[in-house]
């Protein structure tokens, strides 16, 4: 749905030039939710603004729904933009219009007749849960409510693509959660393709099917969440699953992962997680093992239905080993449910060959 290749954007001032986006390739399939993470100044907003040509890229192409936007003339670009909704970090609402008026604006732009506008606005405000505040002005709303108006407005013209720049960064965790649930719901019901920017790992965990990490204008890591989990040394996987290690009893995380042997297991089909979301190929696992004095440290990553199984308890029971859990977490992701732990098994790697073998068989590799 969104294809970006070789995108480059440089901001020039008299003194210096800032390369904000430095050769980004990106592909977001229809119905995907793609998250871009990165630190402040990494070029995330610039990238997003290049997708609907709010910023003209210096190089590269941006194709949305089969049209190369960099080559469109002004009039055609306007029409193309009407099919791309955008949520702005600072809401960007019209202060002189009511909530309903703000949503109606997007429909006035597309030339929707007045009567139809009214019903559509009511429908959208219902959708974002603001039906009662239709006549309020933005100044009378809370941040979360303003963001909902922004979402309703972005969806008014029935776009196929939604761009979101830090839609939840100004909000508290509960409001964030309700907005994420709304986005996820829209994505599922309308098949909306979403390209979102965030600096919150929670957002990626909750709704993204794919993600990328941006640094200094480049993607340093990208892929589907399931692929990222399988990738050894993936920073994103590590951040998605903080092992929560303290100084006590833990070897440096990077060492364990680096020393580790990683392999993929065949994807196992999973019917659905507890959210009732259907998952294509889950059950991927990854682990890393390393020897330490008298102990074998194992990192295991389990996703899909396995995450809910008592793997560690089974391990202890079957092999009679005193498994120590050094750290770990279980998370519900948008596409799957997954857990990641670091375990300490007594003895050397050879002593634990059978146990490691067992883990591998259970959908975890060591």
């Amino acid at each position, binding site marked *: 749905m969104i294809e970006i290749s070789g995108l480059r954007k440089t901001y020039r001032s008299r003194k210096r030039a800032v390369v904000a986006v430095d050769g980004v390739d990106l592909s977001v399939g229809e119905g995907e939710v793609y998250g871009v993470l990165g630190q402040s100044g990494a070029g995330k907003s610039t990238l997003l603004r290049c997708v609907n040509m709010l910023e003209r890229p210096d190089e590269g192409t941006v194709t949305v729904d089969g049209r190369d936007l960099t080559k469109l003339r002004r009039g055609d670009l306007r029409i193309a*933009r009407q099919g791309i909704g955008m949520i702005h970090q600072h809401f960007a609402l019209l202060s002189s219009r009511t909530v309903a008026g703000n949503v109606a604006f997007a429909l006035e732009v597309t030339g929707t007749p007045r009567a139809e506008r009214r019903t559509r606005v009511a429908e959208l405000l219902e959708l974002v849960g603001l039906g009662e505040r239709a006549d309020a002005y933005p100044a009378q709303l809370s941040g979360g409510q303003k963001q909902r108006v922004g979402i309703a407005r972005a969806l008014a*013209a029935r776009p196929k693509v939604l761009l979101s720049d830090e839609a939840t960064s100004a909000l508290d965790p509960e409001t964030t959660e309700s907005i994420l649930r709304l986005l996820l719901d829209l994505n599922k019901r309308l098949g909306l393709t979403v390209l979102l920017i965030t600096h919150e790992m929670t957002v990626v965990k909750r709704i993204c099917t794919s993600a990328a990490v941006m640094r200094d204008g480049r993607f340093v890591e990208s892929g589907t969440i399931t692929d990222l989990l399988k990738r050894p040394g993936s920073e994103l996987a590590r951040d998605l699953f903080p092992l929560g290690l303290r100084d006590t009893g833990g070897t440096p995380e990077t060492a364990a992962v680096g020393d580790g042997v990683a392999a993929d297991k065949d994807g196992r089909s999973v019917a659905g997680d507890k959210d009732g979301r259907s998952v294509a190929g889950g059950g991927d696992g990854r682990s890393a093992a390393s020897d330490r004095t008298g102990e074998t440290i194992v990192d295991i990553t389990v996703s899909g239905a396995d995450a809910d199984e008592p793997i560690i308890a089974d391990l202890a029971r079957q092999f009679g080993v005193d498994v120590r859990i050094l750290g770990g977490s279980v998370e519900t992701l948008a596409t799957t449910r997954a857990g990641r732990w670091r375990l300490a098994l007594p003895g050397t790697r050879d002593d634990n060959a059978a146990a490691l073998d067992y883990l591998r068989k259970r959908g975890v590799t060591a």
Partner: protein
Amino acid sequence: MTWSEVFELLEVGLQETAWMVLVSTLLTLVGGLLVGVLLVLTDKGGLLPLRPLNAVLGLIVNVGRSLPFIILLVAVIPFTRAIVGTTIGTDAAIVPLTIGAIPFFARIVESALREVPADVVAAATAMGATRTQIVGKVLLRESLPGLVAGLTITVIALVGYSAMAGVVGGGGLGDLAIRYGYQRFETDMMIATVVALIVFVQLVQMVGDLLVRRLSHR
């Protein structure tokens, strides 16, 4: 001079002042909005960047702003005669008043429009709005309270200018104050015109403030 004579003169003076201010305000509104909007649109990074036009407009406005009104009044006399056919009377005064107020109001319009946050304009652009829609429904509509406040200031400045126009035969309250109060030492007349001017300005300011409060939803 009796009080009834004073009031009679005052009534005529007020009417003349009101007329001059009203007509020149309407003309200034149109001219100032046009120039102000163009200044914003044609600026670099604007919706219609046209550096030469922007530079020329900016220059004209600056020249207009830097001339003291009393000088402008005299300087445009040939132009006034060409348009109105005379250089005396309220209609003739309207020409320099308008020429003096347009640059003043244009700058106010420009700064009011610049107050509209860039991301609001970007949001409208991202929705696929035309430039006309952005100017009308975003820039002008969003800055309406600021524009009304600016217009109030302009009207009050015009009341002041119109008094000066009275000096060169424009009529109105200023004319009365000069002819009777200053030249003939009619203190009653002087006091009456001063009070009338104060009341007039107060009224304009009150109406302006009320409108701004009604329009503003920030």
